[in-house]
């Protein structure tokens, strides 16, 4: 009896969490003859159709939104992991002059809000031709490079590397490994879960990012999904069937990613929270 009650509560919570998306789905599936403002609302579409999805796909460069978002996100993840590992390795496993000062200044960057940097970053990107006015590739780089390195990423990888035992390197050196071989063959395989968690962080921060892409991008075919969706919203201001269809399409990759890599999302949330 008590268990049944608990399940009822849980189901209500899940409904509260996904109802807004289900309502989008219901709207997107409605046929041309159905009134989406009907009172009382029609929850189950009477003439379900996928036409709204194909219509939005044809009316705006949806495919490009996806391609741009995927390319930018993958590049950002790649840069983040590479640069974090490169910086974290000496900080965690070697001793050198200026180590403390360097580590401190890296931590200090975590205190600088992006909203302060975005104006000068915009000027820098204009100077370096890193906006999409100079082409799609430049636009991609303009979106990626400012987020290529993160103080948090370096800190996160360093914390993982620092806990590994010293004997690992000592025996590797006796075997004739150089520092790069030690990193690649000995240390990195041991911190794979940390790197996966960092990848999830970078994914979450990049995939949904709106502020910076909206500043850098101007040509619709260069838009990422969030910028494209906002434009969709103003272009079809009252056609909620199309807006709902486009919005739902954009959710698919995130949901797939989330349900396959769930456990890294949760480690992320519990390891101390680092949003925006």
């Amino acid at each position, binding site marked *: 009896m008590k268990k049944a009650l608990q399940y009822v509560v849980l189901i209500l919570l899940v409904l509260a969490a996904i109802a807004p998306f289900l309502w989008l789905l219901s709207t997107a599936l409605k046929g041309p003859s159905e009134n989406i403002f009907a009172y009382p609302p029609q929850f189950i579409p009477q003439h379900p159709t996928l036409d709204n999805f194909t219509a939005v796909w044809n009316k705006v460069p949806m495919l490009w939104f996806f391609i741009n978002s995927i390319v930018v996100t993958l590049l950002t993840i790649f840069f983040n992991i590479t640069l974090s590992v490169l910086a974290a390795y000496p900080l965690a496993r070697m001793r050198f002059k200026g180590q403390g000062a360097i580590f401190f200044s890296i931590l200090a960057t975590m205190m600088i809000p992006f909203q302060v940097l975005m104006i000068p970053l915009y000027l820098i990107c204009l100077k370096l031709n890193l906006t999409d006015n100079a082409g799609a590739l430049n636009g991609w780089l303009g979106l990626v490079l400012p987020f290529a390195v993160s103080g948090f990423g370096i800190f996160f990888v360093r914390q993982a590397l620092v806990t590994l035992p010293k004997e690992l390197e000592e025996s590797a050196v006796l075997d004739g490994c150089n520092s790069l071989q030690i990193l690649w063959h000995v240390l990195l395989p041991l911190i794979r879960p940390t790197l996966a968690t960092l990848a999830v962080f970078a994914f979450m921060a990049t995939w949904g990012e709106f502020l910076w892409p909206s500043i850098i991008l101007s040509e619709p075919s260069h838009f990422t999904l969030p910028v494209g969706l906002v434009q969709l919203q103003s272009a079809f201001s009252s056609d909620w069937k199309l807006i709902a269809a486009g919005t739902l399409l*954009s959710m698919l990759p995130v949901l797939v990613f989330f349900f396959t890599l769930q456990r890294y999302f949760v480690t992320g949330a519990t390891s101390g929270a680092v949003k925006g």
Partner: protein
Amino acid sequence: MFKPRTPYLYLILPAVFMVGFFFLPLLMAFNISLSDYSRDIYHPAFVGWANYAKLAHSEPFWQAMQNTFVFLFGVVPAMVVLPIFLALLVNGKLKGITLFRSLIYIPVVISMVVVGIAWRWLYADDGLINWFLSLFHLPKVGWLVNPDIALYSVMIVVVWKGLAYYMMMYLAHLQSISQELYEAAEIDGANLWRKHWHVTLPHLRPTMVMVGIISTIGSLKVFTEIYVMTRGGPVGATKTLVYYIYERAFENLDLGIASAAGIVLMLILLVFSMLEMRLSPKDDDAKALEKLKRAETPLLPGKNGVA
């Protein structure tokens, strides 16, 4: 073990990015905030602290500040308290509980733009929420078009999206509370309410402080949710500090004022970040991290750090 220059070789590339995209822009931001761009954006003139003085007398700036703090004082208490109840609800050992947790977590992983659009549709004049109110013979509410209400409507969405995130943080700490404490309380005759009041709450207090500070920092930076749902309207009722910066910089091209407001934002955030460091529970965190490490690297059970 290694050559003395080896560590520096590894650091070169990250350092180039750090300098180019953090330290240089930070210096530039200070510099821009001391210049006047409003006359000629290509030939800014040095004006000292004039932009800061202008801000201090600017009506829209203080309006944005006020909105930001109304937002903060509404959202932060909700984020600190409500997820505790959620965490208690999903803490059971029920069958399929992990699936329930994941489903409840969905709003966290969906991007703010998508969430904003979904809620704009719910909040529509003839939308689902107003229909629901009509069932109880309540009048329609202009959720996003009434200047007295719009900011609160956005706050509801932000809380709705963030709850599960903090729920997971609380859950992690709930599960670290020793079961024996609850058993002892039961032997002393404590009921459910008193058990949570005397055992759970004191253990969660450090987490509550963390959640409070994290959500404060998030609230101070709120932008995308506003842009998507109201564009700062109606009549500026939902313009927040970051919205003000964005508008000044990229719509009015008044980079000087915008940068000055950005520096003000950074100083406010700095105060809260300091608080976070001062108040963050050192040994609790270390323990939690240690637990995490063990869970993550099963190859090395219980090895000590060699820092």
